[in-house]
């Protein structure tokens, strides 16, 4: 790296960054699978959604003159979609994985289109944890990370068990706090890595 823009201060950081071959490679990180209960939650979610639609198609009176909605095959079609969607969601849920590195969060998801989302911890402005009724029953929690400027969440990590979610959240929160009050916390901008926490 020759001359840098003035806002970049490489000296503050000792994570060997050059040569390129020595850059930490995100694909070599052993991603931890998320909780195995999440696959159940994802499948249930799809099943409930499509199942309600199927039940509605079966039970509700059919408006006159709408031929397609009147077809007796419609509830069955919706049920078939429910089965397909929930099995896909289950498979996707089994394959989701995440990792917390000292400087970023990695989340891999998707079946047909496999996505690896990486959000640097320095970019996280705000982190939220939440859980719906099914998730609570299964002891799961989802973490939502917001970065600057984005109106929607930039990373949603679903399917962490509560203890792990709490550890990740605390780690990120501590980093945000250290960043917000650099003078108060310590002169160096980055606190020590906490890799041990997550195995």
């Amino acid at each position, binding site marked *: 790296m020759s001359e840098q823009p003035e806002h970049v201060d490489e000296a503050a950081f000792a994570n060997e960054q050059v040569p390129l071959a020595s850059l930490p490679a995100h694909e070599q990180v052993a991603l931890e699978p998320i909780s195995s209960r999440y696959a159940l939650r994802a499948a249930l979610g799809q099943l409930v959604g499509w199942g309600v639609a199927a039940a509605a198609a079966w039970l509700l009176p059919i408006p006159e003159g709408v031929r397609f909605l009147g077809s007796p095959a419609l509830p069955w079609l919706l049920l078939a979609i429910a089965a397909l969607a929930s099995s896909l969601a289950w498979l996707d849920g089994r394959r989701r994985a995440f990792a917390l590195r000292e400087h970023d969060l990695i989340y891999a998801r998707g079946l047909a289109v496999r996505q690896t989302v990486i959000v640097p911890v320095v970019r996280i402005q705000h982190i939220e944890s939440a859980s719906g009724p099914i998730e609570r029953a299964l002891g799961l929690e989802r973490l939502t990370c917001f970065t600057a*400027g984005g109106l929607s969440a930039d990373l949603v990590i679903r399917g962490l068990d509560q203890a792990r979610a709490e550890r990740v959240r605390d780690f990120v929160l501590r980093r945000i706090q250290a960043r917000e009050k650099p003078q108060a916390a310590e002169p160096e901008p980055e606190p020590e890595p906490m890799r041990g926490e997550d195995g």
Partner: protein
Amino acid sequence: MAETSAWRRLSPWSVVFILLKGAVRTARENLPVLVGVGAGIALIERIGARELIAAAIAVAVVGAAISVVYYRRFRYHLTGEVLRVRRGLLEVVEIELRADRIQHIGVREPLSMRPFGLAVVRVSTPGGGKHDVELPGIRRQRAHELVDALTNARGEVAPPDDDPHALAADVRFRASPLGITLHGVANQSILVAVAAAAPILAQLIPRLEGAQARALGEAVQELGVRLGSHTAAWTLLALTALALLLAGSILIAWVQYAGYELRREGDRYAQRSGLLSRQEQLLATPRVQAIDWVETAVGRALGRSYLVCRQIGSASKVAEPGGAFVIPALDRQAAARLLDEIWPGTATTPALHRPHRAYRRVLMLRASLPAGLIFTLAAAAMGEPRWLLALPVALLALWPLAYARWRAFGYRLDDRFLWVRRGLLGRRRVIAPPARAQRVVVSQSLLQRRRELASLTLTLAHGPVTIPYISAAEARRLADRVLAAVETTRAHL
């Protein structure tokens, strides 16, 4: 630096503007309803004109009362580097903004406020629209004091009050009248305006009397007879419409950018422009997240382009008047010179890489799906299956287009900058330091996995930038490079 230690109010005149703004907003939000009511004159007949006037007066009185209460409750306060704003009608909200969190500062002098010497100050934070603050109507002098105080607290050099001539010398760019006119021609902002007004037009056009449409048709017919050719008459009509569009676009460009001036003040840029309403915007150079260098198709032919300097937060939206920091009406040299000034080393676009050849096929497929749909629909609508025979011809014609689009796409990532260029006729280049990325996504579809390809998406301040269909190894390598850049930078915004 004008440090104020007590809570301040808006100018009393601002009551009028709060009322007007509220009325306009309410009207805009309920426009379909209003149009519906306006058309249903039966309503007036039923309830009577007197009642209607009474209702209007009642609404106006309530609106005025609300405005007065809002004005009376509105307070702002600047101590050191914290701007506090207290506002609200029933629920009073107090917002605290630390100067170093502020991303975007703008001062607007709407035409209606200029006789009163008032201005609107708007500041926004990285958090998005929810925490943006607007002071709707304070004295112009105070607005500028406030802006200077805030930028000073942010650690930028504000202009010295005693020597305005020193600043005049540092004008970095001034838009010429010709430049503004060409900018209008190149950008067709009227189309945006028409698109924005589309919901209203959709309401109004069906209400046009058939007689009016017939009258237009007859007028053209008559003109055709006089000219001796109907084609000529319709061409004339089309040309007139085009000329009107052009005139409208030029007018919009003039209203927005007349007297445009970009000055450098220490570590920041300030731009002023506006024919009727005047706006001033500030851009702190270290806070620039990405720059879009945009050449529209017409603009490329005219050699005109513009730069959009992106900051974090809602202010990055171009659609909003005075939103993004747009440097308009640039010719190529001026654009390159300004780019190089903001980020040294960006004057010349480096040699760019192309995505994998498989991307051509993807572009082709993406273009042919709508084409197939259009031809099928056309064949179905006209009841002539012959139209479907034209489809293969159209698809053949799409091949070179897809190829050209693939060729036009280019990317490069080095230690200092990410470059992404795209667009066949119009051209857009995104330039951003990789350390500014907010999020990195590597994605692989089934097809991509079979060919060991991947797409890399970087989320920047204003949205995602995708480098599609590069080798998977390259995508990962670039992702790691971006991450290393982000994680070694100290500036977290």
